């Protein structure tokens, strides 16, 4: 078992890379979605809401299978397990992130908009120089929670055959005669990674003195 530890640590790196990439895309997508949601044009808003409600109501496992088996059939475009997993995780993360970003932008008082407008800032300039910097401190701590969720969800990539941490643990289990020590090691590794990240989140929260981690509740995965 000990002999396999380096292998598992490397696999943990793969899991981190996958989750990080998905989170990055999800954060961009979520921000876009939040901006669309905030527009006055109703159909845009409805579209954004439908998107969020859809991903809030369909298990990530289904989304992942869809990305891997469904997308090639429909679009005639083969996705590798890695690409499919990244896509599914990013789609899911973007739905949650759009709410986080929206709450962040909403937390900046209306007076800030008015002050900027009065000073002759365009919408984009206001966003870039006034709103975003203030929203960021509200957005950052819960984003850490979304990242942890994404990291946990990335374990499902093992089901569509991507060899990340969970798959590696199962393979190690097979080649060491089926004990459950590899599974326990798996749990410990995930725990250590996520706990470390959550401590960063808690530190950010203390630093920015923003709300509680309640935001991330319901992020069971």
């Amino acid at each position: 078992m000990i002999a396999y530890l380096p292998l598992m640590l490397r696999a943990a790196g793969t899991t981190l890379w996958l989750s990080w990439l998905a989170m990055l895309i999800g954060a961009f997508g979520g921000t876009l979605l939040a901006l669309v949601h905030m527009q006055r044009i109703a159909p845009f808003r409805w579209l954004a809401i439908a998107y969020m409600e859809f991903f809030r109501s369909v298990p990530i496992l289904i989304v992942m299978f869809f990305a891997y088996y469904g997308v090639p059939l429909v679009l005639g475009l083969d996705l590798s397990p890695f690409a499919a997993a990244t896509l599914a995780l990013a789609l899911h993360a973007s739905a949650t992130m759009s709410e986080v970003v929206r709450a962040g932008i909403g937390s900046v008082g209306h007076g800030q908009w008015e002050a900027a407008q009065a000073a002759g800032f365009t919408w984009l300039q206001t966003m870039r120089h006034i709103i975003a910097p203030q929203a960021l401190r509200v957005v950052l701590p819960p984003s850490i929670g979304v990242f942890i969720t994404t990291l946990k969800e990335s374990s499902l990539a093992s089901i569509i055959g991507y060899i990340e941490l969970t798959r590696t643990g199962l393979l190690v289990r097979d080649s060491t005669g089926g004990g459950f020590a590899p599974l326990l090691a798996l749990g410990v590794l995930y725990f250590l990674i996520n706990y470390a990240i959550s401590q960063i989140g808690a530190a950010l929260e203390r630093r920015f003195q923003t709300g509680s981690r309640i935001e991330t509740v319901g992020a069971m995965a």
Partner: protein
Amino acid sequence: MNYTFTLRTIYPYLGELWQAAAVTLWLSSLAIVLSIALGAGIAVLRRSRLRLLRVLGAVYVEIMRNTPLLVILYVVYFAAPAIGIRLSSFVAALLGLTLNSAGYMAEILRAGLIAVAPGQFEAAQSQGMTGWQVFRHVVFPQVFRTIYAPLGNQVIAVILASSLASAVAVEDVASWMQTVGSTSFRFFETFVIAAIVYLVLCQTVNIARLLIGRWLFRQGATR
């Protein structure tokens, strides 16, 4: 690009879909009820006078919040036989889901308890209420109001998470999708149908909780 969507090949499997949906619903309901009970126990533990018990409760919550459900399911499913207990897939999945969800439930309930001001306990006690009366008439209604929304979120989270039970061979909706998809080769259709089933389940809960909430908290009481 010219994929034709057809449900004809799926028809024969729809009977199994109902069964699968029933399994999903039953598994989630049991897990929700059991994890509320276990979560309540842990929330109480975290308010204990004994430091050891408080730490124990906190460690439990951290482990459950930071470990993937899939790994927890595998550990339960494969560990039980190793220590000489034979668990059916369903029981293993139920156990894994419950243990995991309890970590979140404990936090929700704890936040609800914290939100009740200490003065509330004192006022109720000084009116001569018994422990049960304090809980029933003063603490519970206030806790319920604070936890109502997050509890609804958690119910939905458990329904979604129950799809992972298919990984330990429970024949739920997600598992129906995988088997029927690979036998009929109509992957796309099975995904759509499975997605709709989950969508309907979750949105039913979502809308029901909004309506019930509006009715329950209809008076002007803000807090």
